[in-house]
């Protein structure tokens, strides 16, 4: 017989082993679904792998997809560190996209436009995140619920915008006017879609890591998240820390939207995010809220997304498998986290 026993410390290699374990478990669990759909498991995963990481072009496509999830993953990781339960990265991303599209459509020199787009997008995301944080600090409103519900509010506001004032009067499609060509983010490798925003995302991760680990703000975020009472007695303004965290988190999620507008779509439409905000939660959990871990976790999910489409074309397994893999990965990771607090022991061998 086996049982769980509390452990007093967690070995460092768990940080790497647990996500890998969760991913392996996910692939094993999902292979059952592939088999049910009548396709070969190894073949399907093979197609997924080749299509997402098999050659340099595929890798650039995966990175382009990973970029917004790096930002939303960082947004969630920062928020969760402070136990500000920001489930609203999706809405913050959309707000960032709208704001940057608005700025990007104003004629001005390219570099200035890009800078202002980033600032506007970050500010919009931050403003949205400030709502649930303020409600929590002021009125003790549950931030999970308020940040989640706000996603729908922002989404419908965006729809109202592109169905209304922004609607393309020529084609009648519900899409915003495009941003200025000069505001398009430069492509870094000719013939691919790898844009400047991807590099910014890759640089943001170590910067956020530095902020969390090496700055007094990061210290206050960590302490507030782990024990707000001790933080308060220690002279930390817990409310102020929560609001700062929300601003930072929302700004990061907003930047995800900026990258999609400036580097991928150059305009706003209703499906500009296939749930990158929600994927950010999976990314952050897989990364164990470590900003550096967010990069590989986002690349993994991006590979699953790009790979699943190719697999669907090649083997007939529905591309929804990508969503199933994401969900399973989150659950597997939550189960794996149990092992940070408990160990499995064989019992019954005692005479």
């Amino acid at each position: 017989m086996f049982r769980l026993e509390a452990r007093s410390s967690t070995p460092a290699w768990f940080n790497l082993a647990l996500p890998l374990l969760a991913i392996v478990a996910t692939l094993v669990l999902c292979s059952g679904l592939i088999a049910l759909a009548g396709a070969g498991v190894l073949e399907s995963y093979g197609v997924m792998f080749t299509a997402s990481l098999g050659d340099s072009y595929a890798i650039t496509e995966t990175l382009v997809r990973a970029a917004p999830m790096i930002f939303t993953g960082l947004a969630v990781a920062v928020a969760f560190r402070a136990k500000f339960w920001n489930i609203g990265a999706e809405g913050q991303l959309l707000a960032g996209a709208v704001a940057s599209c608005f700025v990007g459509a104003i004629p001005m020199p390219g570099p200035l436009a890009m800078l202002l787009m980033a600032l506007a997008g970050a500010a919009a995301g931050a403003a949205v995140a400030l709502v649930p944080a303020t409600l929590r600090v002021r009125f003790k409103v549950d931030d999970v619920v308020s940040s989640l519900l706000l996603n729908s509010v922002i989404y419908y506001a965006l729809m109202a915008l592109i169905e209304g004032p922004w609607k393309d009067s020529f084609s009648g499609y519900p899409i915003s006017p495009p941003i200025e060509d000069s505001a398009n983010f430069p492509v870094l490798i000719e013939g691919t879609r790898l844009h400047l925003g991807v590099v910014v995302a890759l640089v943001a991760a170590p910067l956020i890591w530095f902020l969390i680990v090496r700055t007094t703000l990061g210290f206050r975020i960590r302490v507030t998240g782990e024990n707000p009472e001790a933080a308060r007695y220690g002279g930390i303004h817990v409310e102020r820390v929560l609001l700062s965290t929300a601003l930072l988190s929302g700004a990061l999620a907003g930047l995800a939207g900026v990258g999609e507008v400036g580097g991928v779509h150059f305009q706003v439409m209703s499906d500009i995010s296939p749930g990158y905000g929600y994927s950010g939660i999976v990314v952050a959990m897989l990364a164990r809220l470590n900003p550096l871990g967010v990069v590989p976790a986002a690349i993994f999910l991006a590979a699953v997304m790009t790979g699943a489409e190719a697999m669907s074309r090649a083997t007939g397994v529905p591309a929804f498998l990508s969503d199933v893999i994401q969900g399973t990965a989150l659950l597997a990771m939550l189960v794996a986290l149990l092992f940070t607090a408990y160990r499995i022991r064989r019992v019954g061998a005692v005479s």
Partner: protein
Amino acid sequence: MSAPLIEMRGVTKSFGAVKANEAVELIVAPGEILGLLGENGAGKTTLMNILFGAYAPDAGEILIQGQPARITSSADALAAGIGMVHQHFHLAPRLTVLENLLIGIPGRSGRIDRAGGLARLAEISRQYGLTLDPDLPVSALSVGEQQRLEIVKALFRGAKLLILDEPTAVLAPSEVDGLFSALRSMAAQGLGIIFISHKLNEVRALTHRCTVLRHGRVAGRVDDPANTTSAAMAELMCGHEIVPPARGPSTPGAEVLKLDGISTSKHSGTALRDVSLVVRAGEILGIAGVSGNGQRALAEVISGVRAPNAGRMAIAGHDVARFSPREVQALGLGRIPEDRMTTGLVTNLPLADSMVLPRIGTAAFSAKGLLKPDAIRAFAEEQIKAYDIRCPGPMVRAGALSGGNLQKALLARELAFDPKVLIVSQPTRGLDIGAARFIHEKFLAMRAKGCGIIVIGEDLEELLVLCDRIAVMYEGRIAGTLASADATVARLGLLMTGAEGHG
């Protein structure tokens, strides 16, 4: 003597490199109250967890009424008649007393047997004098009542052996008497009891025999605790003699803390009503009183987490204006909280983080918003060495440390910055004699250096040893203040009940 109820033979258990128990032998007879003694970390809880099936021993065996038993889960233990009241209770706060008793007890045809439960509860209450209102939710019970419920829960499941892990650490002195009379009546009716406590006077008053653990091994046994001195038992526990610290004459200096007519709202717990007191440099002022008479509000006001409605407070001659923790700390206040785990440390983060928490924004540990990780680490390492804090290093999770070591860490973090005033609540609650003595010595050393100390406590003997003056709180007021030369347990006790009127 009848056949032993429980016998543990050669029980050994390691956690990594730590040998928590090594070849431990322990016997409890029916009707016997066995004291289990040892310093913090001696392995008492581990041993009891093995008996209760929470840990599997690495070696050794357990005999129940002479028969080898295999206990691999708490369900096995309960089935074998072993009940345990843990240091931290395992109750469902939203459920009622009766519902908590019935959890996990199969009723007839899947339904809860309410009538049967009530009858059994009434029987247990009558038998041992343990009364509880079956329909109150657990969240409405006091700590003492919750403990009573844990005991009743074990008896409800037919326990013949009851394990109590430091039950008196959470009780007020008046509640201890009630617990003891219940335990005595259980023993009189043939139950075996294992009683863990650091308070040797309790052990001497209650137990029939004692087993003493030191570093996981049995250091000795005491066959007649009532006629053994506390000093002799303490020596068995620590392996060396414990000398009480000597408090020299006090030479009080300037006022370092002054409260003048402080009143608070009844926000949580008892409010303060017109409290005035003075602590001078180089003296220790005790605050005695039955807990719940405003001590918490007093500590909160002095710590700067709660602003009073009326009155003034000054630290080292400076008026406190905003009542924020940062402000009082900047004026020279240090603080050792009552509740180490909730308001003191961050259990999930490295110990070093907790040790610098209140001063993270100062030049010692950060500059321009950037931490100085090397300075933080060096500070923690230095204090770990200076205070002999037993831990693997500054980066270990704070929560992995024992209570005594956590208390030393908190002490180190406050004393390192030479506070002018130190406010301390229940400084040695849950600590063993050696650790308590160490803490007392540090306070006396600070006093000699001219620090003013205010100690909030329930243990009158401790206050009498430590303090120059003792003020008694009653219903949010200072009921009276005695110089400790004039104070006796009896006089203080009288003040604590409000008998001498308002001083």
